[in-house]
């Protein structure tokens, strides 16, 4: 199989690390060679965070380079815009339709770009959802990333049961049930 390349972009603290581990976990379970590249340390403190997942018959490089991603999962609009050029022409962006202002925007030094979603749609195929509101309806906003994973899962070809198994293995025990619900909400949407 040709190596599949996925990028997860977000803001430090949004759970990009956990998400990349779930995606790596499902590929490992299916018997693929896998590489997951993470970000730790200072960059995590509210900064732009990007992680990479690659799987296939034999994977060398842990990174996904510009123009090579099959799927871009973005937890925030500005981060989607920052990494959209990493997607292949026929790649898909799965977007959590949320805005988090960087410090320079908060203080008014620069402004947050207008109408990012239509900018993104001009460039690539975009699936956008306000996952935060949906997660809030489920009872915990923090599980919004499982909704996004559920949406991305539809174009990755593993079975629903396999996904649920990996989620159970990866998330904290007391959070399993709500994460499963969140995943299914995205998967069935």
């Amino acid at each position: 199989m040709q190596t599949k390349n996925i990028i997860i972009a977000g803001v430090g603290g949004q759970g990009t690390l956990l998400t990349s581990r779930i995606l790596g976990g499902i590929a490992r379970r299916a018997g693929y060679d896998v590489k997951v590249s993470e970000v730790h340390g200072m960059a995590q403190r509210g900064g732009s965070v990007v992680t990479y997942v690659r799987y296939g018959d034999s994977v060398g490089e842990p990174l996904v380079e510009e123009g090579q991603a099959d799927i871009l999962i973005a937890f925030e609009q500005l981060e989607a815009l920052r990494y959209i050029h990493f997607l292949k022409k026929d790649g898909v962006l799965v977007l959590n339709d949320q805005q988090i202002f960087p410090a320079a925007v908060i203080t008014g030094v620069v402004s947050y770009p207008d109408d990012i979603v239509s900018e993104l749609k001009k460039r690539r195929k975009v699936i956008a959802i306000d996952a935060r509101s949906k997660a809030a309806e489920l009872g915990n906003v923090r599980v919004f990333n499982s909704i996004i994973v559920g949406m991305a899962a539809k174009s990755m070809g593993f079975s629903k049961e396999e996904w649920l198994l990996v989620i159970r293995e990866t998330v904290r025990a007391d959070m399993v049930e709500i994460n499963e619900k969140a995943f299914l909400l995205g998967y069935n949407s």
Partner: protein
Amino acid sequence: MKNEMPTPAELMLGNAAIARGAYEAGLKVASAYPGTPSTEVSENLTRYRDELYCEWAPNEKVALEVAIGASISGVRAMSVMKHVGVNVAADPLFTIAYSGVGGGLVLIVADDPGIYSSQNEQDTRLVARAAMVPVIEPSDSEEARVFTKRAFELSEEYDTPVILRTTTRLSHSQSLVYPEERIEQEIKPYQRNIAKNVMIPINARGRHLAVEARMKRLADDAETVGLHQVTYSDRPMRVKSVDGSGHEELKVGVITSGIAYQYVREALPDASILKLGMVYPLPRRQIEAFATRVDRLYIFEELEPFIEEQVRSWGIPCIGKEIFSIQGEYSIQIIIREILGEQYEYDQPLSVPARPPILCPGCPHRSAFAVMKKLKLHAAGDIGCYTLGALSPLDVIDTCVCMGSSISTLHGMEKGRGRDYMKDWVAVIGDSTFLHTGVNSLMNMVYNQATGTVVILDNATTGMTGHQHHPGTGVNLMGEKAPITDIAALCRSLGVEHVHVIDAFDTDLLEKRLKEEVARQAVSVIIVTSPCVLLKDFVPKGKCAVIADKCRKCGLCIVTTCPAMRKYEDGLVEIDPLVCTGCGHCQKSCKFDAIRKDT
């Protein structure tokens, strides 16, 4: 190779795989100081706490010396640190290379090409060569596990400490690992041997020659060390001509190691590749043989031209740093452009506002820096999350060199320019950093009659590296309750007469004390306490909210750059209740009582 059955392979971080390898090798003692990207090695060792001992030491010098002691006592021992930590540990490292080992002694060092979370990009291979310590380098997690085990064997076979070098990309990438059982090692019987273990001049002279002989033996044996991997290809490749004017067809060979190998193997399937598992000393005969089989030889190594310079010194023509940068991480596109001479095309990145790291909502440092800024203080800074105090809008920190340097640089400034010039300066350092190497500097200030003020931002953890314990937190790496180093008492014992402990959010008192102490003609310490909001047991103090009809939309609260706050186009401010910790910092900034705090 998509299997029907799940494989027994585990997806493991490079750092977790190093810990696994050390465990399997029968490791008995490990000591480390946290530092990105090395920290997770020690954290993963705690999984095996029933069969080995691991600890956080206050700094890397202490950590390596603990490992040295364990090795001399006859057990396998390890120390773990980031590249700049080796500078701190350089003193014991350079001399233990002379003494050699009892039980196997391995030093894990994580370099940071690209400078994701460090103050420089130094190359540990150069330090290792200066110290005459062999370096081995894995290229994925499974190799990290296997090479770590091999490092212990080599250490004992050649009577030398061995450095296993990793990089950020390897340490923080997960790939498949095939764990094996642990093999307990027999404890080497202790024998008093002062010629080897007491490095006084008469002994050290002899050992210097012994070290040279050992490195030569290791270089001669490099082929049989078993860490190198060579693949030959007879297929000619189309590559960029040397003068860059066009292309030519020839047989290409690449010498590479570590993570850089992964880019080569994907980008150049038709090249011959010599992947070096041990990068110091180098296998000269193998490299010479490899070079004769190819028409053009590239050396593809991140950071310094370490392999390249040695290869050139043997009269072997090669191409390296004239086309590859000494700065940053490598990639496949670098190979496509510089070796293949092809365009690497993709959409141009869009111009997007940057999102640098920022202090968390509720971070006590924000409150402390606001007071220092109000008083127009400059700070000699240090290494930690609080280094962000150099950036706008905090703008308090003027300098940052290395761990513990804030206090001593402040002292040097005063000695250089005089007391009056330094009247609006302080040193700012964190609790973990103070205990790392700040203590000596404070001792120096007292001893040499400085008059500066040291602000210790005590958030009860080693924050930036991901919340590791230290001697001041009351818990050790194994998770056990530990005696607490009382920082205030420690400062007093050094002779500091004016020591204050103030809550980071008691800004009135902090302002008063800062004014008093900065003016005082004596060394003083202000310990600003409040736990890091990311600690597991942190309890939020409540939630702040904007009272819409009182808000004058002046934006003063927004200038605090708390990430919990956002301003709408109509000027109204909203505070995200999900991330607000109720620290009340924004409330203090509001002149119209338009922010309330619900507890």
